[in-house]
Protein backbone atom coordinates (compact mmCIF):
# COMPACT_ATOMS: atom_id res chain seq x y z
CA UNK A 1 0.00 0.00 0.00
CA UNK A 2 1.12 3.51 -0.78
CA UNK A 3 0.70 4.63 2.81
CA UNK A 4 3.51 2.35 3.94
CA UNK A 5 5.92 4.01 1.58
CA UNK A 6 5.16 7.60 2.57
CA UNK A 7 7.38 9.45 4.99
CA UNK A 8 5.58 9.39 8.29
CA UNK A 9 7.27 12.55 9.59
CA UNK A 10 5.75 14.86 6.99
CA UNK A 11 2.31 16.25 7.88
CA UNK A 12 1.76 17.76 4.48
CA UNK A 13 3.18 16.25 1.37
CA UNK A 14 2.74 17.62 -2.14
CA UNK A 15 4.06 15.53 -4.98
CA UNK A 16 4.60 16.83 -8.51
CA UNK A 17 1.85 19.42 -8.24
CA UNK A 18 0.97 21.31 -11.41
CA UNK A 19 -1.70 23.97 -11.91
CA UNK A 20 -2.74 25.37 -15.26
CA UNK A 21 -4.88 28.34 -16.17
CA UNK A 22 -5.76 27.58 -19.76
CA UNK A 23 -2.47 27.29 -21.60
CA UNK A 24 -0.56 29.06 -18.82
CA UNK A 25 1.28 26.85 -16.36
CA UNK A 26 1.23 28.74 -13.05
CA UNK A 27 2.68 25.89 -10.97
CA UNK A 28 4.91 23.33 -12.61
CA UNK A 29 5.74 19.98 -11.07
CA UNK A 30 6.28 21.27 -7.54
CA UNK A 31 7.04 18.78 -4.75
CA UNK A 32 7.14 20.20 -1.27
CA UNK A 33 6.68 18.49 2.03
CA UNK A 34 6.28 19.94 5.43
CA UNK A 35 7.60 18.16 8.51
CA UNK A 36 5.77 18.18 11.83
CA UNK A 37 6.49 21.38 13.72
CA UNK A 38 8.40 22.88 10.83
CA UNK A 39 8.06 26.43 9.52
CA UNK A 40 8.81 26.49 5.84
CA UNK A 41 8.98 29.81 4.01
CA UNK A 42 7.97 29.99 0.37
CA UNK A 43 9.57 32.93 -1.35
CA UNK A 44 9.87 34.10 -4.92
CA UNK A 45 9.22 37.12 -7.13
CA UNK A 46 5.71 38.39 -7.94
CA UNK A 47 3.87 35.95 -10.15
CA UNK A 48 6.08 33.03 -9.14
CA UNK A 49 3.01 30.95 -8.32
CA UNK A 50 3.17 31.04 -4.52
CA UNK A 51 -0.47 31.98 -3.99
CA UNK A 52 -1.53 29.54 -6.66
CA UNK A 53 0.36 26.79 -4.86
CA UNK A 54 -1.33 27.70 -1.56
CA UNK A 55 -4.66 27.65 -3.41
CA UNK A 56 -3.86 24.19 -4.72
CA UNK A 57 -3.07 22.91 -1.24
CA UNK A 58 -6.16 24.46 0.34
CA UNK A 59 -8.36 23.22 -2.50
CA UNK A 60 -9.35 26.47 -4.20
CA UNK A 61 -7.88 25.45 -7.56
CA UNK A 62 -7.74 21.96 -8.97
CA UNK A 63 -4.56 20.26 -9.99
CA UNK A 64 -3.55 19.50 -13.54
CA UNK A 65 -1.27 16.82 -12.08
CA UNK A 66 0.16 15.67 -8.77
CA UNK A 67 -1.05 14.48 -5.39
CA UNK A 68 -1.47 16.12 -2.01
CA UNK A 69 -1.50 14.26 1.29
CA UNK A 70 -2.43 15.61 4.68
CA UNK A 71 -1.12 13.25 7.32
CA UNK A 72 -2.15 9.79 6.16
CA UNK A 73 -5.01 10.99 3.99
CA UNK A 74 -4.89 11.73 0.29
CA UNK A 75 -6.75 15.04 -0.04
CA UNK A 76 -6.11 15.67 -3.74
CA UNK A 77 -9.81 15.60 -4.60
CA UNK A 78 -11.26 16.66 -1.27
CA UNK A 79 -13.29 19.91 -1.27
CA UNK A 80 -12.05 23.03 0.54
CA UNK A 81 -14.34 22.77 3.57
CA UNK A 82 -13.37 19.16 4.25
CA UNK A 83 -9.66 19.98 4.04
CA UNK A 84 -10.28 22.79 6.50
CA UNK A 85 -12.13 20.43 8.80
CA UNK A 86 -9.26 17.95 8.52
CA UNK A 87 -6.92 20.48 10.09
CA UNK A 88 -5.70 22.69 7.28
CA UNK A 89 -6.00 26.38 8.15
CA UNK A 90 -5.13 29.27 5.88
CA UNK A 91 -4.97 33.02 5.70
CA UNK A 92 -5.28 35.03 2.51
CA UNK A 93 -2.91 37.49 0.88
CA UNK A 94 -5.76 39.97 0.42
CA UNK A 95 -7.75 40.33 3.64
CA UNK A 96 -10.68 37.98 3.43
CA UNK A 97 -12.97 38.23 6.44
CA UNK A 98 -16.73 38.61 7.08
CA UNK A 99 -16.89 42.33 6.48
CA UNK A 100 -20.34 43.10 7.85
CA UNK A 101 -19.71 41.49 11.21
CA UNK A 102 -17.95 42.42 14.41
CA UNK A 103 -14.69 40.81 15.46
CA UNK A 104 -16.55 38.56 17.88
CA UNK A 105 -19.10 37.52 15.26
CA UNK A 106 -16.32 36.70 12.82
CA UNK A 107 -14.48 34.45 15.23
CA UNK A 108 -17.61 32.87 16.68
CA UNK A 109 -18.82 31.99 13.20
CA UNK A 110 -15.54 30.27 12.48
CA UNK A 111 -15.92 28.31 15.72
CA UNK A 112 -19.40 27.16 14.67
CA UNK A 113 -18.38 25.10 11.68
CA UNK A 114 -16.62 22.54 13.82
CA UNK A 115 -19.08 22.62 16.70
CA UNK A 116 -22.00 21.18 14.75
CA UNK A 117 -22.42 18.69 11.96
CA UNK A 118 -25.68 20.34 11.01
CA UNK A 119 -26.03 23.96 12.08
CA UNK A 120 -29.00 24.23 14.49
CA UNK A 121 -31.75 26.75 13.73
CA UNK A 122 -34.05 26.59 16.73
CA UNK A 123 -32.11 28.57 19.31
CA UNK A 124 -30.01 31.74 19.26
CA UNK A 125 -26.31 31.17 18.86
CA UNK A 126 -25.79 32.56 22.38
CA UNK A 127 -27.28 29.32 23.69
CA UNK A 128 -23.91 27.71 23.00
CA UNK A 129 -21.51 29.71 25.20
CA UNK A 130 -18.54 27.53 24.25
CA UNK A 131 -18.51 29.20 20.83
CA UNK A 132 -18.06 32.65 22.28
CA UNK A 133 -15.51 31.34 24.75
CA UNK A 134 -13.38 29.99 21.91
CA UNK A 135 -13.78 33.26 20.00
CA UNK A 136 -12.58 35.26 23.00
CA UNK A 137 -9.67 32.89 23.55
CA UNK A 138 -8.41 33.36 20.01
CA UNK A 139 -9.10 37.10 20.10
CA UNK A 140 -6.85 37.32 23.13
CA UNK A 141 -4.20 35.28 21.35
CA UNK A 142 -4.09 37.62 18.33
CA UNK A 143 -4.48 40.81 20.37
CA UNK A 144 -8.08 41.72 19.64
CA UNK A 145 -9.65 41.69 23.13
CA UNK A 146 -10.29 45.41 23.04
CA UNK A 147 -11.92 45.32 19.61
CA UNK A 148 -14.31 42.38 20.09
CA UNK A 149 -17.50 44.35 19.55
CA UNK A 150 -16.26 46.59 16.76
CA UNK A 151 -17.34 46.01 13.17
CA UNK A 152 -14.25 44.78 11.34
CA UNK A 153 -14.47 47.62 8.82
CA UNK A 154 -13.59 50.02 11.62
CA UNK A 155 -10.29 48.29 12.36
CA UNK A 156 -6.86 49.29 11.13
CA UNK A 157 -5.31 47.17 8.41
CA UNK A 158 -3.06 45.52 10.96
CA UNK A 159 -6.00 44.62 13.18
CA UNK A 160 -7.88 43.23 10.19
CA UNK A 161 -4.83 41.07 9.53
CA UNK A 162 -5.19 39.83 13.09
CA UNK A 163 -8.82 38.86 12.40
CA UNK A 164 -7.67 37.07 9.24
CA UNK A 165 -5.16 35.10 11.28
CA UNK A 166 -7.68 34.52 14.07
CA UNK A 167 -10.15 32.92 11.66
CA UNK A 168 -7.46 30.48 10.61
CA UNK A 169 -6.51 29.71 14.22
CA UNK A 170 -9.99 29.05 15.59
CA UNK A 171 -9.97 25.26 14.95
CA UNK A 172 -6.37 25.00 16.16
CA UNK A 173 -5.18 23.53 12.83
CA UNK A 174 -2.17 21.23 12.65
CA UNK A 175 -1.11 22.80 9.37
CA UNK A 176 -1.26 26.51 8.70
CA UNK A 177 -0.85 28.12 5.29
CA UNK A 178 -0.09 31.82 5.64
CA UNK A 179 -0.10 33.89 2.47
CA UNK A 180 1.80 37.11 3.21
CA UNK A 181 0.47 37.68 6.74
CA UNK A 182 2.37 41.00 6.86
CA UNK A 183 1.10 42.40 3.56
CA UNK A 184 0.01 46.01 3.92
CA UNK A 185 0.88 46.16 7.60
CA UNK A 186 2.29 49.46 8.92
CA UNK A 187 5.90 49.66 10.08
CA UNK A 188 5.00 49.93 13.75
CA UNK A 189 2.87 46.79 13.56
CA UNK A 190 5.49 44.56 11.97
CA UNK A 191 7.32 43.72 15.18
CA UNK A 192 4.22 42.71 17.22
CA UNK A 193 2.86 40.71 14.26
CA UNK A 194 6.17 38.89 14.06
CA UNK A 195 6.03 38.02 17.73
CA UNK A 196 2.54 36.71 17.10
CA UNK A 197 3.75 34.55 14.23
CA UNK A 198 6.50 33.18 16.43
CA UNK A 199 3.90 32.21 18.97
CA UNK A 200 1.44 30.81 16.44
CA UNK A 201 3.97 28.55 14.74
CA UNK A 202 4.77 26.75 17.98
CA UNK A 203 3.42 23.22 17.94
CA UNK A 204 2.24 23.27 14.34
CA UNK A 205 3.53 23.13 10.81
CA UNK A 206 3.49 26.38 8.89
CA UNK A 207 3.92 27.13 5.22
CA UNK A 208 4.66 30.84 5.08
CA UNK A 209 4.65 32.98 1.96
CA UNK A 210 6.35 36.26 2.77
CA UNK A 211 8.19 39.04 0.94
CA UNK A 212 9.76 40.52 4.06
CA UNK A 213 13.12 38.73 4.13
CA UNK A 214 13.87 39.96 7.62
CA UNK A 215 10.83 38.15 8.92
CA UNK A 216 11.55 35.07 6.83
CA UNK A 217 15.09 34.93 8.15
CA UNK A 218 13.95 35.08 11.77
CA UNK A 219 11.01 32.68 11.54
CA UNK A 220 11.70 30.05 8.93
CA UNK A 221 13.44 26.75 9.60
CA UNK A 222 13.83 26.23 5.89
CA UNK A 223 13.16 28.17 2.71
CA UNK A 224 11.82 27.12 -0.68
CA UNK A 225 12.51 29.48 -3.55
CA UNK A 226 9.97 29.44 -6.35
CA UNK A 227 10.48 31.08 -9.73
CA UNK A 228 8.19 30.89 -12.74
CA UNK A 229 6.02 28.20 -11.18
CA UNK A 230 8.95 25.92 -10.36
CA UNK A 231 11.01 25.20 -7.28
CA UNK A 232 14.46 26.65 -7.71
CA UNK A 233 15.90 25.32 -4.49
CA UNK A 234 15.20 24.44 -0.89
CA UNK A 235 17.63 24.98 1.95
CA UNK A 236 18.32 26.53 5.33
CA UNK A 237 18.03 30.35 5.41
CA UNK A 238 21.76 30.96 5.70
CA UNK A 239 22.44 28.78 2.67
CA UNK A 240 19.70 30.53 0.68
CA UNK A 241 21.10 33.98 1.34
CA UNK A 242 24.52 32.78 0.23
CA UNK A 243 23.39 31.03 -2.91
CA UNK A 244 24.71 32.78 -5.99
CA UNK A 245 21.79 31.44 -8.00
CA UNK A 246 19.23 32.97 -5.68
CA UNK A 247 21.06 36.28 -5.59
CA UNK A 248 21.20 36.41 -9.35
CA UNK A 249 17.69 35.21 -10.13
CA UNK A 250 15.69 36.70 -7.35
CA UNK A 251 17.17 38.45 -4.40
CA UNK A 252 19.23 40.92 -6.37
CA UNK A 253 16.13 42.77 -7.39
CA UNK A 254 13.78 41.86 -4.56
CA UNK A 255 15.77 42.34 -1.40
CA UNK A 256 16.65 45.88 -2.38
CA UNK A 257 12.96 46.63 -2.75
CA UNK A 258 12.11 45.28 0.69
CA UNK A 259 15.05 46.57 2.68
Amino acid at each position, binding site marked *: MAALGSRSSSVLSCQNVSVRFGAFQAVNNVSIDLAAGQTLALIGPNGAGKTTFINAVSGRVSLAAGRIRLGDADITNVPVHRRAAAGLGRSFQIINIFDQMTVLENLRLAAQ*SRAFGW*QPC*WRPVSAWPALERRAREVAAMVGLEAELDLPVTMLSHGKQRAVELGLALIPDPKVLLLDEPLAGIGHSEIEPTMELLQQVRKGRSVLLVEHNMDVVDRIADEIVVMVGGEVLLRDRPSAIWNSAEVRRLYLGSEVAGHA
Partner: protein
Amino acid sequence: MRQVKHSEVLTVGVLVLLFAAAPFVTGDEGWLYLAALIMTWSIFALGYDISFGLTGLLSFGHAAFFGMGAYAASWAMLSAGLPFSVGIVAAIGAGGLSALVFGFVGRRVSGLYFSLMTLMLAELISIVMTTRLRHLSGGVDGLPGVPRPQAFGIDFFNAANFYWVIFALFCLTLAFCAVLKSSPLGQALRGVRQNAVRSEQVGFNVGALRLTALTLSGCLSGLAGALLASLMMYVSPQLLGWKMSGDVVIMTLLGGSGTPVGPVIGVTLVELLREGLSATTEHWYGLLGVIFILCTIYLPEGVAGLGRKLWRR
Protein backbone atom coordinates in the same frame (compact mmCIF):
# COMPACT_ATOMS: atom_id res chain seq x y z
CA MET B 1 -26.22 47.27 17.76
CA ARG B 2 -28.43 46.74 20.76
CA GLN B 3 -30.54 49.72 19.78
CA VAL B 4 -31.28 48.23 16.38
CA LYS B 5 -32.35 44.99 18.01
CA HIS B 6 -34.66 46.93 20.29
CA SER B 7 -36.27 48.77 17.43
CA GLU B 8 -36.74 45.48 15.58
CA VAL B 9 -38.56 43.85 18.48
CA LEU B 10 -40.66 46.98 18.89
CA THR B 11 -41.69 47.23 15.25
CA VAL B 12 -42.50 43.53 15.04
CA GLY B 13 -44.60 43.90 18.19
CA VAL B 14 -46.49 46.86 16.79
CA LEU B 15 -47.12 45.00 13.54
CA VAL B 16 -48.49 41.94 15.30
CA LEU B 17 -50.69 44.13 17.49
CA LEU B 18 -52.06 45.95 14.44
CA PHE B 19 -53.04 42.71 12.76
CA ALA B 20 -54.44 41.35 16.02
CA ALA B 21 -56.54 44.47 16.51
CA ALA B 22 -57.94 44.59 12.97
CA PRO B 23 -60.94 42.26 13.52
CA PHE B 24 -61.96 44.27 16.60
CA VAL B 25 -61.69 47.59 14.80
CA THR B 26 -63.59 46.56 11.69
CA GLY B 27 -66.08 43.85 10.99
CA ASP B 28 -65.94 44.67 7.30
CA GLU B 29 -65.24 41.50 5.33
CA GLY B 30 -63.40 43.39 2.62
CA TRP B 31 -60.90 44.93 5.00
CA LEU B 32 -60.38 41.66 6.85
CA TYR B 33 -59.81 39.91 3.55
CA LEU B 34 -57.21 42.52 2.66
CA ALA B 35 -55.46 42.15 6.02
CA ALA B 36 -55.46 38.35 5.64
CA LEU B 37 -54.08 38.74 2.14
CA ILE B 38 -51.30 40.97 3.45
CA MET B 39 -50.37 38.43 6.14
CA THR B 40 -50.38 35.61 3.58
CA TRP B 41 -48.12 37.47 1.19
CA SER B 42 -45.98 38.48 4.15
CA ILE B 43 -45.33 34.82 4.91
CA PHE B 44 -44.26 34.45 1.28
CA ALA B 45 -42.01 37.53 1.43
CA LEU B 46 -40.50 36.49 4.77
CA GLY B 47 -39.77 33.10 3.27
CA TYR B 48 -38.30 34.72 0.20
CA ASP B 49 -36.01 36.82 2.37
CA ILE B 50 -34.43 33.72 3.92
CA SER B 51 -33.08 33.03 0.48
CA PHE B 52 -32.37 36.61 -0.60
CA GLY B 53 -31.80 38.82 2.43
CA LEU B 54 -30.15 36.24 4.65
CA THR B 55 -28.23 34.03 2.24
CA GLY B 56 -27.85 36.32 -0.76
CA LEU B 57 -29.53 34.00 -3.27
CA LEU B 58 -31.49 36.13 -5.73
CA SER B 59 -34.20 33.80 -7.01
CA PHE B 60 -36.65 34.72 -9.75
CA GLY B 61 -38.48 31.42 -9.43
CA HIS B 62 -40.16 31.47 -6.04
CA ALA B 63 -43.57 31.35 -7.69
CA ALA B 64 -42.89 27.67 -8.32
CA PHE B 65 -42.57 26.96 -4.57
CA PHE B 66 -45.57 29.17 -3.82
CA GLY B 67 -47.72 27.63 -6.54
CA MET B 68 -46.70 24.05 -5.84
CA GLY B 69 -47.60 24.63 -2.19
CA ALA B 70 -51.00 25.95 -3.25
CA TYR B 71 -51.61 22.95 -5.51
CA ALA B 72 -50.32 20.39 -3.02
CA ALA B 73 -52.74 21.68 -0.38
CA SER B 74 -55.59 21.85 -2.87
CA TRP B 75 -55.00 18.33 -4.14
CA ALA B 76 -54.70 16.97 -0.63
CA MET B 77 -57.98 18.57 0.42
CA LEU B 78 -60.00 18.40 -2.81
CA SER B 79 -58.98 15.09 -4.34
CA ALA B 80 -57.86 13.11 -1.32
CA GLY B 81 -60.35 14.68 1.06
CA LEU B 82 -57.68 15.16 3.70
CA PRO B 83 -58.08 17.76 6.45
CA PHE B 84 -56.73 21.29 6.23
CA SER B 85 -53.83 20.60 8.61
CA VAL B 86 -52.58 17.81 6.35
CA GLY B 87 -53.00 20.12 3.37
CA ILE B 88 -50.77 22.68 5.07
CA VAL B 89 -48.11 20.07 5.81
CA ALA B 90 -48.30 18.89 2.19
CA ALA B 91 -47.87 22.48 1.00
CA ILE B 92 -44.82 23.03 3.19
CA GLY B 93 -43.40 19.76 1.91
CA ALA B 94 -44.13 20.52 -1.73
CA GLY B 95 -42.66 24.03 -1.47
CA GLY B 96 -39.54 22.71 0.22
CA LEU B 97 -39.17 19.81 -2.19
CA SER B 98 -39.44 22.04 -5.27
CA ALA B 99 -36.87 24.39 -3.78
CA LEU B 100 -34.61 21.45 -3.05
CA VAL B 101 -34.83 20.38 -6.68
CA PHE B 102 -34.09 23.93 -7.89
CA GLY B 103 -31.16 24.17 -5.54
CA PHE B 104 -29.80 20.82 -6.63
CA VAL B 105 -30.06 21.65 -10.33
CA GLY B 106 -28.42 25.02 -9.69
CA ARG B 107 -25.78 23.81 -7.24
CA ARG B 108 -22.92 24.73 -9.55
CA VAL B 109 -24.13 28.14 -10.67
CA SER B 110 -24.20 31.39 -8.76
CA GLY B 111 -25.04 35.04 -9.17
CA LEU B 112 -27.06 36.05 -12.19
CA TYR B 113 -26.88 32.54 -13.66
CA PHE B 114 -28.58 31.17 -10.57
CA SER B 115 -31.31 33.81 -10.87
CA LEU B 116 -31.94 33.01 -14.52
CA MET B 117 -31.92 29.28 -13.86
CA THR B 118 -34.60 29.64 -11.17
CA LEU B 119 -36.66 31.80 -13.54
CA MET B 120 -36.48 29.23 -16.31
CA LEU B 121 -37.20 26.23 -14.10
CA ALA B 122 -40.24 28.02 -12.63
CA GLU B 123 -41.53 28.90 -16.11
CA LEU B 124 -41.04 25.30 -17.16
CA ILE B 125 -43.17 24.10 -14.24
CA SER B 126 -45.77 26.75 -14.98
CA ILE B 127 -46.03 25.74 -18.63
CA VAL B 128 -46.17 22.03 -17.90
CA MET B 129 -48.87 22.58 -15.30
CA THR B 130 -50.98 24.73 -17.64
CA THR B 131 -50.70 22.38 -20.62
CA ARG B 132 -49.62 18.79 -20.03
CA LEU B 133 -51.02 18.57 -16.52
CA ARG B 134 -54.25 20.40 -17.32
CA HIS B 135 -56.28 17.58 -15.82
CA LEU B 136 -54.51 18.08 -12.50
CA SER B 137 -54.18 21.84 -12.44
CA GLY B 138 -57.52 22.75 -13.99
CA GLY B 139 -55.68 24.49 -16.82
CA VAL B 140 -56.06 28.25 -17.14
CA ASP B 141 -59.42 28.03 -15.36
CA GLY B 142 -57.81 26.59 -12.25
CA LEU B 143 -59.59 24.60 -9.56
CA PRO B 144 -62.43 26.25 -7.66
CA GLY B 145 -63.62 25.29 -4.20
CA VAL B 146 -60.37 24.93 -2.31
CA PRO B 147 -61.63 24.34 1.24
CA ARG B 148 -60.79 26.00 4.51
CA PRO B 149 -60.27 24.21 7.83
CA GLN B 150 -63.13 22.38 9.48
CA ALA B 151 -62.61 21.87 13.17
CA PHE B 152 -64.08 22.43 16.62
CA GLY B 153 -67.41 23.33 15.04
CA ILE B 154 -66.02 26.70 14.00
CA ASP B 155 -67.14 28.09 10.67
CA PHE B 156 -63.94 29.10 8.94
CA PHE B 157 -65.82 30.22 5.85
CA ASN B 158 -66.59 33.17 8.01
CA ALA B 159 -63.82 35.64 7.10
CA ALA B 160 -63.18 36.63 10.70
CA ASN B 161 -62.61 33.06 11.84
CA PHE B 162 -60.25 32.14 9.03
CA TYR B 163 -58.43 35.39 9.72
CA TRP B 164 -57.18 33.96 13.02
CA VAL B 165 -55.80 30.85 11.36
CA ILE B 166 -53.73 33.01 9.03
CA PHE B 167 -52.78 35.33 11.88
CA ALA B 168 -51.45 32.41 13.93
CA LEU B 169 -49.35 31.10 11.05
CA PHE B 170 -48.13 34.63 10.31
CA CYS B 171 -46.95 35.02 13.92
CA LEU B 172 -45.29 31.60 13.82
CA THR B 173 -43.47 32.59 10.65
CA LEU B 174 -42.26 35.86 12.17
CA ALA B 175 -41.02 33.98 15.23
CA PHE B 176 -39.35 31.32 13.12
CA CYS B 177 -37.56 33.89 10.98
CA ALA B 178 -36.37 35.83 14.02
CA VAL B 179 -35.01 32.72 15.74
CA LEU B 180 -33.47 31.42 12.52
CA LYS B 181 -31.64 34.69 11.96
CA SER B 182 -29.96 34.62 15.35
CA SER B 183 -29.31 30.87 15.34
CA PRO B 184 -26.07 29.18 14.32
CA LEU B 185 -27.64 28.28 10.97
CA GLY B 186 -28.71 31.89 10.44
CA GLN B 187 -25.23 33.15 11.25
CA ALA B 188 -23.71 30.61 8.88
CA LEU B 189 -26.07 31.72 6.10
CA ARG B 190 -25.17 35.32 6.80
CA GLY B 191 -21.54 34.31 6.47
CA VAL B 192 -22.21 32.65 3.13
CA ARG B 193 -23.82 35.83 1.83
CA GLN B 194 -20.97 38.03 3.00
CA ASN B 195 -18.06 35.88 1.98
CA ALA B 196 -18.54 32.41 0.52
CA VAL B 197 -14.81 31.87 0.03
CA ARG B 198 -14.06 32.53 3.67
CA SER B 199 -17.03 30.42 4.76
CA GLU B 200 -15.63 27.45 2.89
CA GLN B 201 -12.20 28.09 4.30
CA VAL B 202 -13.43 28.02 7.91
CA GLY B 203 -15.02 24.65 7.18
CA PHE B 204 -18.60 25.32 6.10
CA ASN B 205 -20.12 23.30 3.30
CA VAL B 206 -21.36 26.32 1.38
CA GLY B 207 -23.31 24.30 -1.16
CA ALA B 208 -25.23 22.46 1.55
CA LEU B 209 -25.93 25.71 3.42
CA ARG B 210 -27.32 27.35 0.28
CA LEU B 211 -29.47 24.32 -0.36
CA THR B 212 -30.77 24.40 3.22
CA ALA B 213 -31.63 28.08 2.97
CA LEU B 214 -33.42 27.66 -0.33
CA THR B 215 -35.37 24.69 1.02
CA LEU B 216 -36.50 26.53 4.17
CA SER B 217 -37.43 29.46 1.97
CA GLY B 218 -39.42 27.11 -0.26
CA CYS B 219 -41.24 25.62 2.74
CA LEU B 220 -42.54 29.02 3.84
CA SER B 221 -43.41 29.94 0.24
CA GLY B 222 -45.40 26.72 -0.04
CA LEU B 223 -47.21 27.49 3.20
CA ALA B 224 -48.12 30.95 1.89
CA GLY B 225 -49.36 29.44 -1.36
CA ALA B 226 -51.67 27.06 0.48
CA LEU B 227 -53.07 29.86 2.61
CA LEU B 228 -53.72 32.01 -0.45
CA ALA B 229 -55.55 29.14 -2.18
CA SER B 230 -57.69 28.62 0.91
CA LEU B 231 -58.29 32.32 1.33
CA MET B 232 -59.38 32.76 -2.28
CA MET B 233 -60.95 29.27 -2.25
CA TYR B 234 -59.42 28.90 -5.67
CA VAL B 235 -56.13 27.85 -7.19
CA SER B 236 -54.83 28.38 -10.72
CA PRO B 237 -51.53 28.07 -12.59
CA GLN B 238 -51.30 31.87 -12.39
CA LEU B 239 -49.85 31.33 -8.94
CA LEU B 240 -46.90 29.61 -10.64
CA GLY B 241 -46.22 32.43 -13.11
CA TRP B 242 -43.20 34.71 -13.26
CA LYS B 243 -45.33 37.67 -12.21
CA MET B 244 -45.72 36.12 -8.74
CA SER B 245 -41.95 35.72 -8.50
CA GLY B 246 -41.50 39.33 -9.58
CA ASP B 247 -44.06 40.58 -7.07
CA VAL B 248 -42.37 38.93 -4.13
CA VAL B 249 -38.98 40.32 -5.16
CA ILE B 250 -40.44 43.83 -5.49
CA MET B 251 -42.29 43.63 -2.18
CA THR B 252 -39.24 42.39 -0.31
CA LEU B 253 -36.90 44.99 -1.76
CA LEU B 254 -39.41 47.81 -1.40
CA GLY B 255 -39.95 47.10 2.27
CA GLY B 256 -36.34 46.32 3.03
CA SER B 257 -34.65 42.97 2.77
CA GLY B 258 -32.70 41.46 5.65
CA THR B 259 -35.01 42.76 8.38
CA PRO B 260 -37.98 41.02 10.00
CA VAL B 261 -40.42 43.84 9.26
CA GLY B 262 -39.14 44.97 5.87
CA PRO B 263 -40.89 42.30 3.81
CA VAL B 264 -44.15 42.83 5.74
CA ILE B 265 -44.03 46.58 5.13
CA GLY B 266 -43.32 46.00 1.45
CA VAL B 267 -46.25 43.63 1.10
CA THR B 268 -48.53 46.07 2.91
CA LEU B 269 -47.53 48.97 0.66
CA VAL B 270 -48.00 47.02 -2.54
CA GLU B 271 -51.35 45.54 -1.48
CA LEU B 272 -52.69 48.89 -0.29
CA LEU B 273 -51.58 50.47 -3.54
CA ARG B 274 -53.28 47.71 -5.50
CA GLU B 275 -56.43 48.09 -3.43
CA GLY B 276 -56.47 51.86 -3.68
CA LEU B 277 -55.53 52.30 -7.30
CA SER B 278 -56.56 49.25 -9.26
CA ALA B 279 -60.18 50.45 -9.19
CA THR B 280 -59.34 53.89 -10.55
CA THR B 281 -56.58 53.11 -13.02
CA GLU B 282 -55.42 50.11 -14.98
CA HIS B 283 -51.90 51.43 -14.84
CA TRP B 284 -51.37 51.01 -11.12
CA TYR B 285 -48.69 48.41 -11.76
CA GLY B 286 -46.77 50.96 -13.80
CA LEU B 287 -47.01 53.38 -10.91
CA LEU B 288 -45.69 50.66 -8.62
CA GLY B 289 -42.79 50.31 -11.04
CA VAL B 290 -42.00 54.01 -10.75
CA ILE B 291 -42.18 53.85 -6.95
CA PHE B 292 -39.94 50.82 -6.99
CA ILE B 293 -37.35 52.54 -9.16
CA LEU B 294 -37.39 55.65 -6.95
CA CYS B 295 -36.97 53.41 -3.92
CA THR B 296 -33.97 51.57 -5.34
CA ILE B 297 -32.35 54.96 -6.01
CA TYR B 298 -33.24 56.87 -2.86
CA LEU B 299 -33.95 54.09 -0.35
CA PRO B 300 -31.57 51.26 -1.18
CA GLU B 301 -32.39 49.62 2.15
CA GLY B 302 -36.13 49.90 1.59
CA VAL B 303 -38.73 51.60 3.71
CA ALA B 304 -37.57 49.68 6.79
CA GLY B 305 -34.06 51.02 6.18
CA LEU B 306 -35.43 54.56 6.22
CA GLY B 307 -37.17 53.83 9.50
CA ARG B 308 -33.93 52.48 10.94
CA LYS B 309 -32.07 55.65 9.96
CA LEU B 310 -34.69 57.86 11.61
CA TRP B 311 -34.64 55.70 14.75
CA ARG B 312 -30.86 55.96 15.12
CA ARG B 313 -31.03 59.76 14.95
